[in-house]
């Protein structure tokens, strides 16, 4: 196999399944930065983010057999692993969860978007910051904090149906910013 050129996704998955060090190097060189930025958009603590990235690569390495190309691209799978691992780690550390909840709730009740959710302007956070407050709160709770739509409905005291439609509108708006 050629070492330097870029692999197709299929080839990369095959190589990963053979557990060659070359496959790892390629994977790490191409995707560690993108995944690290996803993790950092959820975990602000760099030390913890480093540990999480390590855990994410170990998971990808060990669980590659579970990746199903029918369901989506390899990168999407890796992003979801990164997001889940980050949220799990945050929850297991009880890390700042209360503080974030309070800030979110406050921002919901503050009029006309004067309060910004504190972020480091990293990765997806950057685009989310462009959205209006209603949407920002929803995506923050759903994507960055891993709340289910049910939990959001209860936390914000908004009907579940409204949460569902508003979350989808927020995501459509988010996509517009990603495109640019």
């Amino acid at each position: 196999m050629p070492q330097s050129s870029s692999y197709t996704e299929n080839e990369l998955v095959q190589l990963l399944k053979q557990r060659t060090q070359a496959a790892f190097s390629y994977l790490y060189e191409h995707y560690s930065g993108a995944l690290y930025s996803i993790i950092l958009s959820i975990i602000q603590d760099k030390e913890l983010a480093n540990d999480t990235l390590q855990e994410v690569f170990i998971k990808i390495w060990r669980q590659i057999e579970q990746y199903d190309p029918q369901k989506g691209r390899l990168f999407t799978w890796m992003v979801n692993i990164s997001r889940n691992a980050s949220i799990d780690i945050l929850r297991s550390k009880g890390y700042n969860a209360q503080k974030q909840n309070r800030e979110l709730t406050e921002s919901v009740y503050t009029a006309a978007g004067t309060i910004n959710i504190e972020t480091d302007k990293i990765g997806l956070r950057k685009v989310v910051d462009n959205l209006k407050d209603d949407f920002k709160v929803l995506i923050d709770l759903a994507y960055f904090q891993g709340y289910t739509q049910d939990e959001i409905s209860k936390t914000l005291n908004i009907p579940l149906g409204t949460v569902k439609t508003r979350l989808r509108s927020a995501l459509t708006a988010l996509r517009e910013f990603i495109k640019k």
Partner: protein
Amino acid sequence: MDIKGYIQSGIIEQYVLGLTSAEESAEFEQLRAQYPELNDAVLNFEKQLEEYALINAIQPPLQVRSTLEKELFNNSTTEKTSIKASTPVYNINTWRYVAAACIILLIISTALNFYFYSGYKNSKDQFEALLSQQNTLQANNASYKQSLQMMEDTSMMHVEMKSVPGKEKNLATVLWDKSSKDVYLYINNMQPTPQGKQYQLWAIVDGKPVDAGMISDCVGLCKMKKIDHAEAFAVTLEKEGGSATPTMNEMYVMGKI
């Protein structure tokens, strides 16, 4: 189905970002298999997302890579360190399950305690009831035995008291120990007493009635008052506690010696 509207609803983004509920995912995957344009839309957004993430990549510190390579390609340390890396997450989950299991076991155990305790209490109550029943039976048995012995005793005088006219079908027997002067009464058959009334035994001495005691519910023979000598015995129905003189028209049985 308005597949275009569905595609634009935001469901694609929601699904790819892993924000759909289980039902939403199932529904989406079913539709995706049906509509190729849905599949295209998914791939399209996935590519966009990937592009965006690659452009906005942030290089992690170098030591992350070296640590990973050590862990993944240095067999001797692989298992140990990987366990260390994932320990915090699993630990808490494990303890959560253990705690949940403990609580469930505690609830089951408490319920069983109640169940067994009430069972035990029932059995204990029944046992005590049986015990007291047995005591009563034993006492009754002793009385009957004693009564029987006295009835068979030839030194005892038997005075059979028969119904007086108008009070038929009543019968009682006096057993009179001539030497000790003790008087016992055996109820062969007497009408039940009405509320507030009681039978009273009289000894007729020199033509006059003498109180020989009240007849209460006794087992076997009722011990009555001592009587030195008498010509006859009789039973009348009196108010509870007895009377000083017998109510003659309430005489039930009588027996001459």
